[in-house]
């Protein structure tokens, strides 16, 4: 194993349907699609729970247990039921992303000071208006924090999708792992890590921007 071979591999395998470019695009699209689907489910639910303060205990307990569910297990179960292709990995990854998103949405709304909500109610805002105009903007940094955690988990774990689908950067890892092709294996790993870091830095910057906006809204 030497790093030179890895860099040679990284430099020379970009083109074609199974090349780095295509795999990178598949990986990114899969990640974004999964996080989007999970967000559509989790964010309204989390906001509702945070707003009404009902069901918080259930969320806390299930988020804890959900963290321990092995994604590899879900993936194989769904694979056995749904066959090969993208459906099983998408479903397994959505379930992986739910806890962080739900916890973020719930905690974000929950952390808005009750006095602020009461004040909004006093000036005549409806409950819907309170959610949209007060709780969501003020809770945004924490909600984005949840989005950030979920994205990070999904982009890393999406490597497992290659276990049953011809997609994503995980393909390089599986081929490399099973044929002892260290250059391809390590090269694939470096690509996943790089993509994860790019998404992480982007979302962290977004979170900081939103935080500044929330604490100093007129600047």
């Amino acid at each position, binding site marked *: 194993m030497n790093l030179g071979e890895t860099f040679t591999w990284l430099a020379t395998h970009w083109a074609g349907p199974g090349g780095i470019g295509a795999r990178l695009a598949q990986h990114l699209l899969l990640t974004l699609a999964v996080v989007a689907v999970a967000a559509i489910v989790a964010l309204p639910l989390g906001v509702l729970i945070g707003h009404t303060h009902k069901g918080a205990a259930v969320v806390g307990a299930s988020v804890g247990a959900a963290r321990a569910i092995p994604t590899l297990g879900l993936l194989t179960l769904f694979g056995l039921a749904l066959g090969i292709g993208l459906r099983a990995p998408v479903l397994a990854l959505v379930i992986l992303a739910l806890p962080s998103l739900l916890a973020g949405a719930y905690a974000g709304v929950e952390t808005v000071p009750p006095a602020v909500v009461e004040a909004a109610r006093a000036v005549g805002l409806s409950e819907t208006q309170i959610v949209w105009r007060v709780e969501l903007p003020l809770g945004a940094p924490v909600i984005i924090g949840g989005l950030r955690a979920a994205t990070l988990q999904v982009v890393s774990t999406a490597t497992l999708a290659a276990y049953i689908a011809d997609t994503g950067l995980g393909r390089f890892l599986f*081929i490399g792992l099973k044929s*002892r092709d260290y250059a391809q294996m390590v090269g694939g790993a470096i690509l996943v890590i790089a993509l994860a870091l790019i998404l992480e830095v982007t979302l962290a910057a977004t979170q900081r921007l939103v935080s500044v906006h929330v604490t100093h809204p007129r600047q």
Partner: protein
Amino acid sequence: MSHRTHRFAALVAVAALALAGCSGAHGQTIVVGSQDYYSNEIVAEIYAQALEKGGYAVDRQFRIGQREVYLPEIEAGNIDLFPEYTGPLLQFWKSSTTARLADAVYSELVQAAPAGLRVLDQSPATDQDSYVVTSAFASQWHLTTISDLKGVTVPLVMGANSEAQSRPNGPQGLLDTYGVTCGFTPIEDGGGPLTVKALKDGTIQLAIIYTADPSIMANDLVSLEDDKGLFLASHLVPLASDKVDDKAAALINKISAAMSPSDLVALDARSVTDQLPAATIATDWLKDKGLV
């Protein structure tokens, strides 16, 4: 360099002592390994149980992975006995081989084994790669041999473990030997239920499934005849290190001789259909054959 290396060295020394301490009547512990494949694990378990009955201490290191992962460990002396398959093993050591038939493959394999390792007797039992299609697909395109695939006018997609993509048994081999072009979809279950499901769903048309797999019969699949010799004969063969002495080797050779091709299919069926653990299947088979 440093503490970590020293500590690791110390750890290795302790582990070595511990291993030496728990060796059996014949002095050394024999490490038996297996592939990450249930059928191979059953055979390894049969070896292990027979050795234990023969008074040897056995350390089981099963479900290690594919050849590319475990063979270096065997060559390094970490594993002493491993159920292997003649054709694929020969191809791994000598990719240029032109041998295809069982005896030719075996005698080349005996020559090819590196120092410190030897192959014991090959068994009549075979478990080799084969291209499999559904019976509906076979009758639609009149397929009995792999050559017949040339007449198929719809795009073909092959499903198999991802290592097939870089091995001679995959799409490249099909193109080189038969002039048939096909796509590739990785399914990491070694020709298991998901591969069968994909065949039946029509997501793939062609799959690599081992001939001893009970699912071929159970699902009415057709194994295409390899008329141009793409696949090497693949008989079950034990790969052994010097730690396997002559008495142990004789024990293992008796097992190989007793195992028929249909035995292997039956063993696999007990695992997949009856859901029995490898240890039970191994014990029953050894008793059945009067080997223990």
